[in-house]
């Protein structure tokens, strides 16, 4: 049956593209546009945080100031000075100036001081913790992405078979366990009931006495402590990758160019890797964007359970202790790292797909 490409569809698609690019104004370049969007997001989130802290009825700042006045008999002046150093907000200035000040401080990396740990700056807290989270979350993400997409590809290839059926069920069930509940189950079942691993020794990010250095012993120790959180992240997220890869692979397997490659007598493994695999994995990079946020979010609940000294555990403590300035700082920090990771995933994607690359 004849399918005719009518001009209007193509033109309106073009128009749609233009509608989008018009909104981005002068930013025609894909990379610049993406960068612009990332900064916009960070800006919006930091603004949101500011107004959340400052404007909500019974805002943490006011609560803090009142607390200082009542408990320690400070004058309002002294208390607001105190608050200023903690939140990097000067309550006596007009709101707009406060806001500008806040932004200025943020750019300088000044996120105020912790309320519950006096004398410690939020920036230094983040600095000491963020590395561990990036390490564990990043490792887990890579493992589950690689492993999950590999299994997903096999599922698609043998679709309808036993392996597919088993893995589908496995993926659906592991994907149904909330990450922190899985962490609890791990400790209960493998640690306590079976005694398979010394869960008490594995707490923290490093053994006491182990220095941060560039050595095998250090890497080994770091991995030893991170293994449980990593396992949990991998377990809960691998199902998603498997199913996603399965569906994109099935799509790719049905593409004409795969049939054509088979007809040309290209060896099956080459078809699987260079025709199916490469085209099937491309859309996954877009999903990586969402998934990074998901795993980082999971650290909030998983790290405290294993008492892993990452940023998530610190955020957990801050929430429990209502350490608002730290909360605010960590919240911003996580947003920035997720945005940055998204940016990297997106750019990686555009490098891999010649169709996007050439649109540049």
């Amino acid at each position: 049956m004849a399918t005719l490409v009518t001009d209007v569809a193509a033109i309106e698609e073009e128009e749609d593209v233009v509608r989008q690019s018009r909104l981005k104004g002068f930013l025609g370049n894909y990379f610049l546009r993406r960068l612009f969007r990332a900064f916009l997001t960070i800006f919006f989130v930091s603004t949101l945080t500011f107004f959340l802290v400052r404007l909500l009825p019974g805002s943490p700042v006011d609560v803090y100031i009142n607390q200082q006045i009542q408990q320690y008999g400070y004058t309002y002046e002294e208390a607001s000075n105190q608050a200023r150093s903690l939140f990097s907000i000067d309550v006596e200035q007009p709101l707009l100036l406060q806001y500008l000040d806040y932004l200025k401080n943020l750019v300088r990396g000044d996120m105020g001081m912790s309320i519950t740990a006096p004398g410690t700056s939020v920036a230094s807290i983040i600095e000491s913790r963020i590395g561990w989270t990036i390490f564990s979350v990043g490792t887990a993400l890579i493992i589950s992405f690689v492993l999950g997409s590999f299994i997903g590809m096999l599922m698609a290839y043998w679709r309808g078979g036993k392996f597919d059926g088993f893995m589908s069920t496995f993926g659906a069930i592991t994907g149904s366990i909330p990450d922190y509940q899985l962490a609890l189950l791990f400790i209960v079942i493998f640690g306590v009931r079976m005694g398979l691993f010394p869960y008490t020794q594995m707490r923290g990010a490093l053994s006491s006495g182990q220095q941060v250095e560039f050595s095998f012993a250090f890497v080994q120790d770091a991995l030893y402590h991170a293994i449980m959180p990593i396992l949990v992240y991998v377990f809960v997220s691998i199902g998603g990758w498997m199913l996603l890869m399965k569906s994109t692979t099935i799509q790719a397997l049905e593409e004409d160019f795969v049939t054509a490659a088979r007809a040309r007598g290209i060896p099956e493994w080459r078809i699987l890797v260079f025709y199916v695999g490469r085209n099937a994995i491309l859309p996954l990079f877009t999903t990586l964007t969402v998934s990074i946020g998901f795993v980082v979010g999971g650290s909030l609940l998983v790290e405290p359970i294993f008492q892993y000294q990452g940023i998530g555990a610190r955020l957990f403590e801050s929430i429990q202790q209502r350490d608002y300035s730290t909360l605010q700082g960590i919240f911003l920090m996580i947003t920035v790292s997720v945005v940055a990771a998204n940016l990297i995933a997106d750019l990686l994607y555009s490098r891999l797909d010649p169709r996007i690359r050439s649109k540049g």
Partner: protein
Amino acid sequence: MAEATLNTSDPTAAAVEVEMRKKSFWRVFVERNKAGAFGIFLLTVILLLTFIGPFFVHGENRTNVSLIYGGPSWAHPLGFDHSGRDIWYQIVHGGRSVILVAFLAALMATAIGVILGSLAAMIGGKFDVAMLTISDVVLTVPTIILLAVLAAFVRLNSPVQLALILGATGWPVLLLAIRSQVLSLKEREYVEAARMLDLGMPRILFREVLPNMASYILINFVFNMRGAVYGQVALYFLGLVSLSGVNWGIMIQEAFRRGAVFLPASMMGLVAPIFMIVMLMWSLILVARSLEDVFNPRLREP
């Protein structure tokens, strides 16, 4: 694609057609989609247990020192927790609010997503740009962290408030999805035909566009429920919701607080609610994946 013909002079053809009709939709469905059928069964069992069960499982949720970590018996098949409360009783009574809150939150998120998403697509212009930007920003921040931080600032005292805050963070994915669906459906030729026939915007939206997204919206609704179960129990776990009543989330939180992780005797109090939540989440995902088939007119009539 097989095309049906109607003017066959062959009498057996008509008979075959009648035969195919007889094969009920549900039979075709179960044959095609065993996992989906199992999901519906599992969800039904959970709903029966949590909504009808409380009428049959009686008891009270009071601390009883003499029964702390008491073992299972016929009357109390799961034993007792750290305060000597019946775990089976808590399981049966503690699911309703979890499911209701998730339902309410998903309803709210879906309503926001569908309404704003279709409006953004239909109106376009500045409104569309604003909606896109907001969803983009909300999406970048990990939901659970946004939820936790919001909940840390706002005190949550009632299930309705809990549902509200869950619903308020759950809509951006749906909004974007609905928006792009409406955008593409809007360009469909049958929608353009309806515009040519001057059938009016409400009819076009509600009769031509939305019915074709029904399965899509429902699938998203179910996924949203999953998200709301996760977020809700996480908020309990973080201690950001005031603890009262019987609830699977509270069970997990209390068990964890009491060090249930390290006490073999208290394991049931932790594992039982987790098991229920996993089953609920699992059944939801199975149901979501089979909804496509339920709404497919091709399965109903060959």
